[in-house]
């Protein structure tokens, strides 16, 4: 393994692990749910991404075989992580607005309404069948 590759991989590993750690640190220290929700994004994206990249290069340089399937992990994370974040945010919104004794609003306060008459999906029956979602019986 060339020193250059060694350095690159080493750096990537450290960057990835560092972002994972920063994400979790954010989870601990940020003041309320919505802020904390931002933290895992770093772990998901740059953290795991850098590690996977390191793994790819590492595999190539150390064992001589190209492995690209690490990309798939990132692909799946990119598909699923926003959904998870969305659902968690909805839980938070739901708990702040509708559950007595539920969670307090974060430092950003309650969310504004989308427009004058409508409301967010978490709070309102869908005004029309949303595109693509199944019609409710």
């Amino acid at each position, binding site marked *: 393994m060339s020193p250059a590759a*060694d350095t690159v991989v080493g750096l990537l590993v450290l960057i990835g692990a560092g972002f*994972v750690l920063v994400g979790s640190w954010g989870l601990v220290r940020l003041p309320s*749910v919505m802020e904390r929700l931002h933290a895992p994004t770093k772990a998901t994206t740059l953290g795991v991404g850098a590690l996977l990249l390191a793994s790819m290069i590492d595999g190539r340089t150390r064992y001589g075989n190209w492995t690209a399937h690490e990309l798939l992990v990132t692909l799946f994370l990119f598909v699923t992580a926003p959904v998870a974040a969305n659902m968690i945010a*909805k839980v*938070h919104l739901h708990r702040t607005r509708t559950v007595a004794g539920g969670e307090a609003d974060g430092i950003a306060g309650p969310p504004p309404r989308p427009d004058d008459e409508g409301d967010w999906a978490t709070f309102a029956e869908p005004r029309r069948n949303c595109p693509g979602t199944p019609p409710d019986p």
Partner: protein
Amino acid sequence: MIALALPLALGCVGVAMLLTLWRLVRGPSLADRIVALDTMVVDAIALIVLIGMTSGTDSGFEAALLLAMVGFVGTVAYCKFILRGDIVE
């Protein structure tokens, strides 16, 4: 460099997991705990990748892939339970 970076990185991820656990135990809200659990899955994927690099085997790939693909199912199911009670309607 790698030889130095890998243990360090493993330590970082381990600490990250413990921090996440702290949030999970501490809460205070349900949403907090779900965030923590979701983060924990990502941390686990990072850990698997690092373990794979340390050992020089590729055998952890399927596990990482599977976690990336179905790890969020638990998260959304927990969320759906809070939102709707019935996770399948």
